[in-house]
């Protein structure tokens, strides 16, 4: 009888060869499910964050942006401002204006106003101011309100046209001509009205809705400060008028609050662009805009803004440092150069430090102007200029008023006239020990006080 052979079993790894595919595929499935789960959680966190932003009445899309702007501005005199903006653009666009007027046109601006020296363009300037007097008077009448004025804006993410605020610079230039001429002819009342209106324009277009509007607001404020500084080179102000000027340069809204509002507005524009896959996004990232619909990418964007938003929480003194830190180590772009999240961070981060510097420069300029006014007030009160800036304590000023945000004291010297100077725009880190020379390009900040 033949001995039956036991059944031959093939080796385990031949019988169970499907395990060689099942195990790796199972692991792969787990990993995919894990990442899918991460995306799901990210989407929930994004939704929660968006809800939090909505409940804080901050903008998240074009509709909420529009409502936010409406809530934070005044409709009083909106129609008048609209008319003023339109007229301001029209009257500045003349050949004679461009040839003969400073600030608006290409005529030279003398370093200091000297009524003793002839001003060759003065007759044309005077005539122009006469013919635009109704416009200027209208500006005077509406700029008393000192509130942001509402203007119709079509919010469309990055493509939002900000025509009114761009045209507001025209109005500032018109008033610069008005103030310049008033100072030249020695009309202090008229000059003061002009400066008050410059202050009013800065308030009216102090639209805290995004970086661009804030920067224009800073520019308008800079124009105002520069004309005040210029006026101090003439001995025309009374003490009451100097007090009025001091009140114009008092610090406005808290820096932390302003910064947060601006970044919130900027975030609203970006989120609107990302949600609607707008043309602005296409210009920035090409055809990769669809990547911003990935929840983790959206979460990273919100995280970037959250970090930038808090840059000014410790006050203006830490703002520069924090902004520099953000720019030096931008989130999501540090170690992984090709990170998709880095795309979003790359769109906002480069602007942060520049904006922070503009805010700080504006504050420095405010303090500088305030110091210059204080010196003149001291002189009127005591019959002579202070020997040092420390003596300004006598008129109620603090040492922080004559110190930059970076902690540098303004330069000062006095004799027949007083000179106070700040840092050059070429080198913001240094304030010269000696009075620097004036230059044609206006890079040196020097105020001459008579």
């Amino acid at each position, binding site marked *: 009888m033949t001995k039956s*052979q036991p*059944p*031959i*079993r*093939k080796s385990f790894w*031949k*019988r169970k*060869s*499907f395990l*060689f*595919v099942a195990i790796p*595929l199972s*692991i*792969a499935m787990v*990993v*995919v499910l894990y*990442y899918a789960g*991460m*995306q799901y959680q*990210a989407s929930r966190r994004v939704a929660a964050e968006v809800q939090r932003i909505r409940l804080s009445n901050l903008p998240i899309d*074009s509709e909420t942006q*529009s409502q936010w702007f*409406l809530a934070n501005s005044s409709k009083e005199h*909106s*129609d008048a401002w*609209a*008319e003023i*903006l*339109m*007229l301001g653009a*029209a*009257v500045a666009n*003349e050949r*004679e204006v461009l040839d003969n007027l400073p600030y608006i046109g290409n005529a030279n601006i003398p370093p200091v106003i000297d009524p003793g020296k002839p001003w060759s363009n003065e007759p*044309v300037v005077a*005539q*122009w101011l*006469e*013919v*635009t*007097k*109704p*416009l200027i*008077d*209208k500006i005077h009448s509406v700029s008393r309100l000192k509130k942001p004025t509402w203007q119709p804006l*079509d*919010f469309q993410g990055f493509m939002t046209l900000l025509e009114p605020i761009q045209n507001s610079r025209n109005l500032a230039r018109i008033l610069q001509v008005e103030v310049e001429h008033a100072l030249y002819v020695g009309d202090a009342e008229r000059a003061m009205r002009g400066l008050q209106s410059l202050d009013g324009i800065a308030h009216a277009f102090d639209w805290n809705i995004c970086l661009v509007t804030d920067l224009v607001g800073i520019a308008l404020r800079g124009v105002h400060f520069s004309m005040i500084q210029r006026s101090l080179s003439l001995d025309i102000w009374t003490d009451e008028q100097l007090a009025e000027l001091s009140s114009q340069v008092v610090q406005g809204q808290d820096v932390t609050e302003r910064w947060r509002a601006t970044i919130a507005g900027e975030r609203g524009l970006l989120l609107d662009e990302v949600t609607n896959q707008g043309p602005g996004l296409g210009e920035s990232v090409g*055809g990769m805009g*669809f990547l911003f619909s990935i929840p*983790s*990418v959206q979460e*990273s964007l919100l995280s970037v803004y959250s970090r930038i938003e808090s840059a000014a929480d410790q006050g203006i003194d830490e703002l520069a440092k924090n902004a520099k830190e953000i720019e030096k180590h931008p989130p*999501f772009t540090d*170690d*992984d*150069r*090709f*990170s*998709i*999240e880095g795309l979003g961070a790359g769109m906002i981060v480069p602007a942060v430090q520049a904006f922070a510097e503009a805010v700080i420069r504006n504050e420095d300029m405010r303090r500088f102007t305030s110091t210059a006014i204080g010196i003149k007030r001291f002189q009127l009160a005591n019959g002579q200029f202070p020997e040092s800036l420390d003596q300004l304590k006598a008129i109620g000023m603090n040492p922080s008023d004559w110190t930059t945000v970076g902690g540098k004291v303004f330069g000062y010297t006095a004799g027949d006239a007083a000179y106070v100077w700040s840092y050059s725009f070429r080198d913001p880190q240094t304030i010269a020990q000696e009075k620097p020379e004036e230059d044609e390009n206006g890079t040196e900040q020097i105020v001459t006080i008579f």
Partner: protein
Amino acid sequence: MNNRLMIQRLWWKELRQLLPMLILLPTIAFLLTALYLLNDNSNQFNWSAGVAVFLGMPGLFAVGAGALLVGQEKEMRTIQWLASLPIRPQTIVRIKTAAAVVGLAILWVISGLYFLWRDRYDTPMTDIGQFSVWPTNSFFVLFAGIAIAWRIKSALVALLLVVPIAMVPYVLALVLHAMMAADEYYYTDPSPGTVIAMQVIGCLVALFLVDRFGRAALSPERVRLGLPFLANATNRERNGRAAPASYGVIQSPLPALIWQFAMQSRALLIGTSIMLLVAAAMLLMRYASRANSVIPFDIFLCYLATSWLGASVFQSDSAHQRIRFLADRGLSPRLIWLTRQIVPITVIAAIAIATLLLASLVGPAGLKASPGLGTMGMLAIASLFVVFSFSQWAGQVITSPIVSMVVAPLVSIIPFTAYSFSVVTLGSPLGLISIAAFLPFLATFLSTRRWMDRRFGKRYWFTQGGYAAIVILMPTFPHFMALAFEPGMSRQVRKQIETVVANPNNVLRMPVELVLDKDVENERPFVSFVRTWNNQIDSVRSQFRATSAPIGISSQGPILKILAINLMAGMSLQQSDSAVSDEHLDLFRRSMELLSDMVVRMRTSPQVVDQDFADSIEIAMVRQMRRTETRAALGEERYKLVAARLADTQARRDARVRSVALSWYNYDSQSKFSRVPPSQFGGYDLQGGGDGLSWKNGKGLAHRRVARRAENLWRMADFSGDEVPKEWLLEVASDWGIVSTYYGLGSGGIYYRVDSVDDSIAVAKKGSNAIANQWYAGWEKQARELLYPSN
């Protein structure tokens, strides 16, 4: 048969063998280029597109030619027949080599023609240094591929081995450069001259090996005999391990088929796995070192390996007709399909996931885990599976293993170009794209039975054609559905518009442009600004009277200036200084008269945008006219004339109706004679909007949507009630993508749509985008009240 005839026939046979690749490769290359041009008109001569396709095409041919000419002969066992012919082996070898060279030269000529054509339309390519090595490299790869094919039994293995050998001249050039370069040039790449020199040397060596291996392969086979005592020992060992003639325990076919596939494709699986692992390692190192390479070799390697794995799904069974063995035993096609797919998918998934986990968790070379890495990893893996999907389909459709391995990489680029066109241009939803990208799996699943039975008749090819059409066209379905079902303009409205257009008084005459300070060459010396303004009024008026043509928004500069003069003069009238007021009074009267005349002329314009601009001017005029001092300033006669014109709602209505009709007529006419649909309607840009209109929609759909917009505008223009229904305003707003606030709806709406000139921002705006937003608003009633005051 004489020798010459035999050689001719041999030439013809070799060239015919290459014909499928010579046809397929350029065809796919041109198809990809056409898709790319269709996709991105603004960048149609992008250099990278040319590199990817028209340099890759000869490269792919060079890789596959050897396997096709020699390896396929070995697999089909015709090599012995060739060897038996009365032709010298070296003649056969040389003819094969020469045929391959001719084929490669033809493809280079085609590539060259493309670059010549491209250079006509763009700046000549100057930065070609790094790509000058490519032609010689392709010839080196060709000769090396033929040499390897002669030496190696398996055509697929020969194909795989070409990839590392292609790098040999570059590596040698690197070594030579490292040895010979001065210190300051040590870290630069070797010059193209050095690389080409190495490639030429490589070509010569490869040609020598071609000759040697070819002759050896065509010569009679040499049998080696082992030593007798060793042979006996081997036999004893074999006998001792003799397995009984038993099949063992019956096991399920699934693991058996998986095992069978893995075994028969082990060379390819191992080769491609090595390629993927090398690519993964290079990718991780590149990220860690932040190196920037012009050609991302790691990505290319990954893509090539995935494509070949895809092609191998069905081709490993096609080789030697292995699939017939399985088909004859009645195995389920579904099981065959599953077991063929699962192993390559496992290889790709395992290596990809392992790389991702390595990068995320272990963090080699300083890489840190980040959500971004996970997102990019998942997207990359998804892309690989799209490549795999199309490659496995190509592997089933193309019967020749070698041709499919060569063509599959090019075929797998098609979905990326086609689908990006669908997403970017046609706005196809991403979900539909995802479904379409994985439909090739379904195509192969359903075709497996026929493929197994080798029934490649007409029905098979038509079916595959159908699948191809569905896969490529599926993302376009929403677009075509919209084309089929979206309503256009109703017949009734079309007839009404045609009636208006047919009226001989309604002429399509485009507006002329007025210019401020036209006679600038006759420079008058400056006297005063008031005089300047008067001169400007004169200048504009004389241009205005010199023509009877319509005017419109193209003249907005001068018109807004006249309006500004009017407003400034009006404000001056309120000044107390009477010496100034006479000049300003004159200015006010003249500017108001001119404005009124210009608005009447604007109403004759055939463009909707000009009607809206006229509305904004009239709104500003109504506001001026309502001021108490205006009547006295203008005088009764002048006041009544201006008021009558402002109060003439019927004239405004007729102008709007005419402008919509003529704008549609203009659009329709331009659309008929242009390949590209016009981008404007009535002076308004058509892009965007709630109906998804984009100029890239295609002429048919764009025309349909514009017609719909025109109908909604027509309905509003033809309105004759008290208040325009809100739904109509909403529809127009939605059509044109304008926020409904501009049409007076919602919070803040009253400031945009002027129902009262006192409450709204009633200032003429340059080029507002809100088409028709002031039509029949409350300001028109206030305009009527100028003439007919309500009690």
